[in-house]
């Protein structure tokens, strides 16, 4: 079971990455408007 001593720090690293990603997404406003994109996909043409 010694492998756990490697896997636990790895899992902690993963968690740190997840949290960092989530924080980045929230502070970047990715969650501010959850409605527009859902509607935009129904439009026939892209915006640009």
């Amino acid at each position, binding site marked *: *079971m010694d492998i756990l001593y490697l896997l*636990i720090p790895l*899992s902690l690293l993963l*968690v740190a990455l997840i949290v960092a990603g989530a924080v980045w997404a929230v502070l970047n406003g990715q969650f501010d408007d959850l*409605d527009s994109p859902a509607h935009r996909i129904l439009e026939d043409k892209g915006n640009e």
Partner: protein
Amino acid sequence: MVAKYPEILSGGEVAGFSPALAERYIERQGENRTRAVLSVSGISCGGCIRRIESQLMDVPGLCMISVNPVSHRATVVFDHRSLALEKIASQFEAIGYPATPYQPREQEVRIESERRQALLRIMVAAALGMQVMMIATALYFGEAYGMNDVLRTTLEYVAMALTVPIMVFSARPFFEQAWKNLKHRQAGMDIPVVLALTVAFCGSVWATLGHAGQIYYESIAMFVLLLLCARFLELSARRRSLGAVLNMEKSIPDCAIRLDADGEPVRVDVRELVAGDRIVIQPGDIILADGKIESGRTAADESVLTGESRPVEKEPGGQVVAGSVNLESPILVRVSAAAPDFAVSRILRLAETAQSGKTRTALMADRVASYFILAVLALAATAGVSWWISDPSLWLAVVISTLVVACPCALSLATPTAFVAAMGRLSRRGIVPMKGEFLENIRSVDHVVFDKTGTLTTGRPRLKSVDTVQGWDRSEALSIAASLNRHARHPFAEAFRAAIEEDRHADYREIGDLSARTGSGILGKVGRDRVAIGSARFIGELVGETDRVFSRKPEKGRSLCYLACEGRTVARFELDDALRDDARAVTGQLKGMGYGLVLLSGDSCDAVERVAGEAGIDDRHGEMSPNEKLEYVRRLRDDGRRVIVVGDGINDAPMVALADVSITMGQASDLTRLHSDAVLLNGRLTGIIEVLEVAWKTRRIIRQNLSWALGYNLLAIPCAMFGLVPPWLAAIGMSTSSLIVSGNAMRLGRARRSPRSRAGA
């Protein structure tokens, strides 16, 4: 005194912005790029958004545009050197979607940042909590199948390290709230939460450090995550309803329309006004500064100064006071003193809607909950002490279980969730609730008072027939009538403009010397002939005779308008305001439910008689002034009746303020709507029935929720005190109970049609 048409009294929409005002709505993004947000009305589908975006992209100087389909706000980035904000707004208007520059309200900014914070806390709690949970599983198995001490201790330390951020960051709002409660000596529901968290965490750390006891890190993580999620949902509901209310505002509250030296209207910030400025005040707007009326005749609501909501008549030359409300018709005011601060703050306060504010039932639930919390704290302490004496190894688990299992969430959630769900359902059906408590007040109501024009009727009169004297034909009379009414704001004017479009022989004429007498008629000149259009009384006073010159008698119940030319009456127009399609069905249903119906109107008794007859209302009163309407409602209330007022006009405003519950139609002015309890945005009277149904359903749900919460606690607390509930089970029990309560409330959100009588609910 007469006023010049059309610039002064109808020019509000086309006015530009003063530089200082425009500055408030734009955000400089570098040398030539500027960002602004506009609130757009008229969007009904994704197609509209597509149309707006593609059509406006062609406007030179506009770099980027994006429209949010839910909040109906457009974000534009443009070059401010070649394009002005009002130019963009007028482009929106030109393609059929009127837009107003939008500045987020303080409330909204606060909710937005709270929401980001809450999301962060949830994410941290979820990500770390998952790891803690995994470690807990390993430890459970270790307990059962054996695990070496080093590994166990390592896992426990890792779990502790992961729980620290949850306690410090994610659970922080609970600690803050509990501290606030303590400072104010209140027993809020965050106190047991914080106690349970602290006790559980300290106990676990103690155990981790090698002393006796259990660890509860996974219970802590789960508990925090569930509580955060519940609060996030509540916050989202609040954000949605606030957005819906703010979107209805068509005008900018603290903005005045000032006429510059050439008589051109410009929109300015209230704080820019100085003595000597001339400002236009539309009906329904707040009078923004002290001053003297230069033209226009109206009534003002000065209740802010006198406390009396009875309208005060205002004539040209009369004084108006900042902070009062213009009720009847547009006026031109010469400002005598700059807008005082209190008036400005009052305007802003009015615009900050009454969204917050707990309902009475919720307040009562909170009070009950606070006693309940004190009782739980006492019980937990008792249980802890008794277990300490009898079996010291278990006392911590029992205390935590008791605190967690009894978490009064269910009790506190019982009422607000039901209201949030009910309001959400109403919003989806085109009924915007402005205040929560009306759902409580509406249950005791026994009378419904209707206004006529615009409420029971469509408010869009149509021209039914034209009688002319010898030598005049229909098209000729219609041409002149419509030309006189070309820029007028009266609902009848609309009817003439619609009629001239349909008559191929009629066309707009050049009108000279145009002047209006508010509420009576309009004067002007066609070529060298003096012409006038107006009510029977106005034309009668002007030329002496009205109906006698026509051979045919007008049909009963129609509104009449007369055209005079060179001192004699030449044409009579019959106008008719059709009943709304659903009016009869609604009045019938309300009668069936046992409500007393009343129709109060300022229109002629004849017209009122006809509409009341069609709608089946026996208790009807015509030719009533806003004052008499107010008195009537007051009398009803003095007799112990509880009244719903359904109205639309600014002249209904006093009555609306007095009623137990007021419902206004969507086209009412901003101010009337802000004062009412609910707005029927879709303009369908069936909304009233729906509101009543939802109110009764809400009450039933609240009762169910409260009895569930009480029953659950009566059962769970004794079990926890006797040590029958381990902490993890307590956390599950608590959250299940909260979920059941919220889920039950969400049933309100589902729209199922089931007409119900009042007695049966």
